[in-house]
């Protein structure tokens, strides 16, 4: 991945994760704040319910007390004492008293606990009152919660008990009000909250006992959803909280806290469960708003980060890219490449260093070239001196012999002259040959490419030297051909290629004065043809291997040092390359890689076919 893209990704991810982290943090804080607020609201509502309960209780207690101390009840208590308990005339008294004091429940009970008059169930006269262990003790209690059994229902109510002691025996007044929708409606609920009451009746949850102040059956919110929560409270007898999902929309969810309501009468039983619900809508909507904002901010941030990162990355990476391009140019041989230096930062310093490095490298290269050139000239001079010195010495001896013969024995001069002139001519011819070889190297022709079968050329070379391999007076050389017949044709100059391979074979023969094995191989690799000429001769040292292709360098006594230089020149002119692998004492192998030159081969084929086409045409 490009440095700029990496930098871009790092910037974008940094922004994205930063925004996400902030959004999550805000969400967590919001949730915490909501939970705190909700707990506070629920606690306030519970406290309000308790206050309302207490207020109603006090109101009821006042009303019941007023009834107990009323003239009508006092007269009844007195009359009951006087007439021996005949209470028939008072069986409907409770109804009028309850109506006057706005009580839903009122029972007048004699000292034996028998109902004299019942407002809520007038027909219950004569029956014992239920729900009390000790009526006299209940007189001292505050208002309490109790279930009142009626003809067709068993409502919950807030009750108080007061005693009238006007007669010989006390008369108990038990009064109360229903804990019903009206009661629940009296609780001032904050927006988004609602309170319901479940009457704990029967063994299992029943929606019939769920009291909703709204009083409207909402089909989207079936009361059966409360069953699990109600059952949990009934089992645990402790406050419970549960979230109820009314639909797939989380905003419709409600968090309900269920608070058990205990009766103060006989048994201290679980009479009801107060359900305080809090809508999650505002919280969910806020959460959505935060999420949307975070997404918008995150998206915008990422886009801005990309744009900004692009700009910053471009600024940051431009010197690096310039450096990279310059380095590539240098690698491709353009030593004159320069990087623009702008500013005084690390990149500028790096660019300046690069420029200085390339300048130094160029300088060193020039010095190296110059040094090599001098060395080459020196080698050339040494070779020329060596080559020329050899024929010059016989020439000098021959001329000195002529002079000596002229002076010492003129009669033999002619014979000496004749012999010396022959020697001089021979040596001059030798000089010409030497000069010709140098001239020939300087005039290496450009290859004329044509379809060539490399294997055929290798076979031709082997055939050419076959007689010399087994010539008398020297150890025989075994020539092996390991040719891959699938190498096919390549575009090459067969004459130059033949000459180059012949040079390599000659070198190999020179390297095996004691005989050995010469191996000629061909194969195809990666679309190129590999030709290998290997011997089992004395081998080359690593230094010799490095310099073996240098013109005029030779490790032989009588070599010109141009043979392998010519081979390298031919191979290079064909777009190939040559390398040497050698190990001292075990032989040397020259490996030539030649391209197929298919384009040139097609062109050559067309040129070749055109005349034929013309002939045939």
């Amino acid at each position: 991945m490009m440095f700029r893209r990496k930098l871009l990704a790092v910037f974008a991810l940094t922004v994205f994760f930063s925004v996400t982290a902030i959004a999550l943090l805000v969400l967590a804080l919001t949730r915490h704040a909501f939970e705190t607020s909700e707990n506070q609201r629920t606690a306030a509502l519970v406290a309000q319910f308790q206050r309302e309960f207490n207020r109603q209780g006090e109101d009821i207690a006042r009303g019941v007390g007023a009834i107990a101390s009323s003239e009508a009840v006092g007269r009844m208590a007195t009359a009951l004492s006087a007439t021996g308990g005949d209470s028939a005339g008072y069986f409907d008294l409770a109804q009028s008293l309850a109506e006057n004091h706005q009580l839903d429940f009122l029972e007048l009970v004699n000292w034996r606990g028998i109902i004299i008059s019942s407002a809520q169930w007038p027909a219950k006269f004569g029956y014992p009152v239920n729900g009390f262990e000790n009526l006299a003790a209940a007189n001292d209690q505050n208002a309490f919660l109790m279930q009142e059994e009626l003809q067709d229902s068993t409502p919950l109510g807030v009750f108080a008990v007061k005693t009238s002691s006007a007669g010989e025996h006390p008369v108990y007044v038990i009064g109360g009000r229903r804990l019903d929708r009206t009661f629940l409606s009296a609780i001032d609920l904050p927006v988004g909250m609602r309170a319901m009451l479940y009457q704990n009746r029967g063994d299992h949850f029943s929606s019939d006992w769920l009291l909703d102040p709204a009083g409207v059956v909402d089909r989207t919110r079936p009361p059966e959803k409360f069953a699990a929560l109600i059952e949990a409270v009934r089992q645990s007898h402790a406050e419970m909280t549960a979230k109820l999902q009314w639909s797939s929309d989380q905003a419709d969810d409600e968090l309900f806290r269920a608070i058990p309501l205990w009766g103060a009468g006989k048994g201290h039983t679980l009479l009801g469960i107060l359900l305080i619900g809090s809508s999650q809508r505002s919280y969910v909507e806020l959460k959505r708003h935060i999420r949307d904002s975070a997404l918008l901010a995150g998206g915008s941030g990422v886009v801005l980060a990309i744009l900004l990162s692009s700009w910053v990355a471009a600024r940051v990476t431009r010197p690096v890219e310039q450096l990279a391009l310059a380095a590539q140019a240098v690698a491709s041989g353009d030593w004159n490449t320069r990087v623009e230096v702008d500013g005084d930062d690390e990149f500028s310093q790096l660019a300046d260093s690069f420029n200085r490095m390339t300048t130094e490298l160029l300088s060193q290269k020039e010095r190296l070239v110059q040094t090599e050139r001098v060395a080459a000239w020196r080698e050339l001079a040494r070779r020329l001196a060596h080559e020329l010195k050899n024929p010059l010495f016989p020439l000098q001896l021959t001329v000195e012999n002529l002079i000596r013969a002229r002076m010492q024995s003129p009669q033999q001069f002619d014979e000496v002259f004749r012999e010396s002139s022959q020697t001089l001519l021979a040596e001059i011819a030798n000089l010409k040959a030497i000069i010709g070889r140098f001239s020939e190297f300087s005039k290496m022709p450009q290859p004329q490419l044509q379809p060539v079968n490399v294997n055929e050329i290798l076979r031709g070379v082997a055939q050419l030297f076959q007689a010399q391999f087994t010539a008398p007076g020297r150890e025989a050389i075994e020539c092996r051909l390991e040719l891959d017949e699938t190498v096919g044709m390549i575009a090459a100059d067969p004459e130059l290629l033949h000459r180059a391979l012949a040079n390599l074979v000659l070198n190999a023969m020179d390297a095996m004065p004691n005989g050995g094995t010469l191996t000629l191989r061909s194969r195809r690799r990666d679309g190129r043809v590999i030709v290998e000429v290997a011997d089992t001769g004395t081998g080359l040292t690593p230094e010799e291997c490095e310099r073996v292709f240098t013109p005029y360098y030779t490790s032989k006594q009588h070599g010109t040092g141009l043979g392998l230089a010519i081979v390298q020149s031919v191979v290079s002119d064909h777009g190939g390359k040559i390398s040497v692998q050698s190990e001292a004492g075990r032989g040397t192998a020259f490996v030539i890689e030649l391209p197929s030159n298919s384009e040139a081969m097609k062109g050559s084929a067309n040129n070749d076919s055109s005349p034929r086409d013309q002939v045939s045409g």
Partner: protein
Amino acid sequence: MKHFVWRWLAASSLLLACAGHAETRPQYGGTLHIAVHVAPATLDPTDVAQSDSFVGRSITPLIFDTLVNTDDAGRAQPALAASWQAAPGNTRWQFQIRRGVRFHDGTLLTADTAAVFLRIAHPSWKIGSDGYLLSIECDSPDFDLLGELSLPQNAIAKKNTDRSVGTGPFYIVDWLPGKKLTLAANEDYWGGRPFLDGIEIEMGKSFRDQMNALDLGRAELVEIVPEQMRQISQEGRQVVTSSPVELLALQFTRDAQTPEDKSLREALALSVDRASIRSVLLQGAGQPTAGILPNWMSGYAFVFSTDADLERARHVREQVRPIPNWTLGYDGRDPLERLLAERIALNAKDAGLSLQPVALQTASPAATDMRLTEITLASTDTWIALDQVAASVGIPLPSTKTRSVEDLYAAEQAMLATQKIIPLFHLPICYAAAPSLQHWNLRADGTLNLTNAWLGSGKP
């Protein structure tokens, strides 16, 4: 007529002259105002579908006469028939129609006009007429013919185009069905002109409105419910009650189908605490009963035990499984019925029965398993009363050869054995009157007798 007017004026003058000395002397004139709870739609005495017996019991005798009347002991007394004679075997009867009696439209009553009415009312009877002699022939001996003829639905009425006219002491001046009836004295009444000039009956009044009207002097006579009788008496008002002639009972909608059903009904009958109900809800009024006829009529009602026996009720109930959920219908407009129904349900619950009171807004009790019913005994004649209850409940009255008490008891026993009805109480009919209303009475069967009533000053 002229002669009568002069005599009436003379008598009035004499009575007015004596008025300052004593209230015991009758006074002519004045309009009696009555307020009642019922609101009848018709005054036709032959309309047996009338839901309330007030019309037949108290209004019909003011407008119409029967051939014979019955006294408190159930004995027949002459009315439009001055005398009668039964042939041996009680299959043929001859009645001598009272002479000089005229309908309110002036038509003279003869045996023919009476026969026309009776033939319509009793198609099975063979009725003959000859002048003032009316004969009735029955297919079988009819021991109760006189009692039957004394029933309000057998009052002699003459059908005119707009309404029926009778021969009673008062005639209809104005009639707003269900609201108000205005009567005026029949100057030519065969029993003598009533002291009152007229009677105005306000109908459909609640008991509270009636008491208010009485207190404010807008009514001189009002109905009261039995449970208010004690309180109203204690308040010093003039209260008159009849003998207990209204049967309050639980009437099952369907016949008992199985022995288990009968057992449950028996358990219900045993669970009802009649004594507490009478003491508290009825405020001592009425008589607890387990029989159909009141003791004052039959003489043997005491043998039917009215005591609640919860232990036995539970035992009987425990023989039956499962226990049905009964519904008990009651008149939702009647607070006493509501209390009674709830109390009976409570008693039933104590016995392990399930009884749900249901307020009936209409008169159709078919939707409930049973209902509280009030049946006013139509006659002081025991057989007629029993027959009427049987017809009302839907039980066939067993046929008997004689009209002995033993047969009556057996018939009543047979009716009770059907478990179609559980008698609870016999209640009296009660009225409260202003002190100014004099010389009126309530017969044992609850019939208002205002023929000789008169209005005084109200001072003692």
